[in-house]
């Protein structure tokens, strides 16, 4: 048993192998999986390992020493904060997309997602899933959208909080929540696009979700090459197919 415990992670004998560990915002789940496939097809023997979660939680983990090379946040200010904290060179912060917000509901749900955020106030909608605004940028955006629509106080009692935006989407997808205010990228993903309907929340109704990332100080050159791929035309094409607007674009 000691021998099992002592053995290292399975290594690739190929000495060309480059591994990059990425911490990514949960709204990137499907787009980034495809981007990684495209990248690995182009770069033989490279391995991109990715963890998805809430952007705010990743900041905590990186501050405590989590071994990530690239951090892809749903909110560029969090990436900037890591650079300010000495975990990366401020020059290595980059924007890669603008996130968009939708009201989503599964087929057969009492909620009518086409009525937008204020449509969720009606009585048969009992629960609305959002990401936890305490640490997830999409949760903060959803809260801002409700405030703009003037329904935040009315909806407060209905909110169920996902640990991150993917969990909020999962609550809505399984029907455990009647509706969700989630990322457009998830509404367009294979698991959701055929089983529900959505309408986009106008971009002016919440502070712009400038999604940005940063290559962390501990990373090697390969991490920069992967980060550059995200902002390359090939990476941007995949991101746009998943409902992301270009960074700093007009939406």
């Amino acid at each position, binding site marked *: 048993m000691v021998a099992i415990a002592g*053995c290292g992670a399975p290594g690739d004998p190929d000495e060309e192998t480059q591994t990059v560990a990425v911490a990514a915002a949960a709204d990137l789940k499907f787009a980034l999986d495809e981007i990684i496939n495209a990248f690995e097809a182009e770069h033989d023997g490279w391995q991109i390992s990715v963890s998805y979660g809430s952007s705010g939680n990743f900041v905590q983990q990186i501050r405590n020493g*989590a071994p990530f090379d690239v951090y892809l946040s749903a909110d560029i200010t969090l990436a900037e904060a890591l650079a300010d904290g000495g975990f990366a060179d401020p020059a290595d912060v980059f924007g890669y997309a603008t996130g968009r917000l939708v009201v989503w509901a599964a087929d057969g749900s009492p909620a009518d997602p086409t009525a937008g955020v204020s449509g969720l106030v009606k009585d048969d909608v009992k629960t609305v899933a959002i990401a936890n605004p305490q640490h997830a940028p999409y949760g903060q955006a959803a809260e801002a959208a409700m405030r703009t629509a003037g329904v935040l106080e009315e909806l407060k009692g209905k909110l169920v909080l996902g640990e991150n935006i993917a969990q909020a989407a999962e609550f809505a997808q399984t029907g455990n929540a009647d509706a969700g205010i989630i990322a457009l990228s998830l509404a367009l993903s294979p698991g959701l696009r055929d089983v529900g309907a959505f309408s986009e929340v106008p971009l002016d109704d919440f502070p712009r979700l400038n999604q940005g990332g940063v290559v962390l100080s501990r990373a090697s050159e390969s991490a920069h090459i992967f980060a550059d791929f995200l902002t390359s035309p090939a990476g941007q094409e995949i991101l746009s197919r998943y409902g992301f607007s270009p960074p700093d674009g007009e939406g």
Partner: protein
Amino acid sequence: MDWDAVVLSLRLAAATTVVLLLTGIPLAAWLAYSRRRWTVVVEAVVALPLVLPPTVLGFYLLVALGNRSPIGRWWIELTGSPLVFTFNGLLIASVLHSLPFAVQPLMASFAGVDRRLLEASTVLGRTWPATIVKVVLPLSRAGLVTAVVLTFAHTIGEFGVVLMVGGNIPGQTRTVAISIYDSVQAFDHATAARTSFVLLLFSLVVLVATYTINRRGRPAWPRP
């Protein structure tokens, strides 16, 4: 199914079990036989992980082992790599989290050993450690088996502590339980269902095996 995660969980559970046997046996023996007042407090501390929410333990461990803590900094100086979000960090967390699952069954069976045998052993000149190895352990087979099985199975199924101290890094700290959580969030219910079913079967087989071994002298599968 995420085989990396399965292998990692098995490695973690095996290592946790080994560490907890090496440390748990002397600790349980001390708790079972010492007459000092402080044993009650130690006993309570050992039992804490049973009642503490895993996130509380995870939070304290993150703070205590993190790169800004004295222990974390000392470890980095010693090995060059951080303790949290690595296998070693997970191992420490799992050992603490599974502590009562090893120590309590051991303590119960040690306490059940006839004290006259212990006294005879001591009178005949055996040291305490030798008495534990030669007399107590052979008479505590059921407790040993229970401790090993519960520690191993409990570590495989651990979630909250692993998520907080491990950080869900593929191949390094993403255990089976976290992999199931990820599958659900990726709307991949088929994979989540498959992995969950394997874990359910595993747990059942493990428990049936334990109860079979522990039915000393009685048939394991009595005829009706």
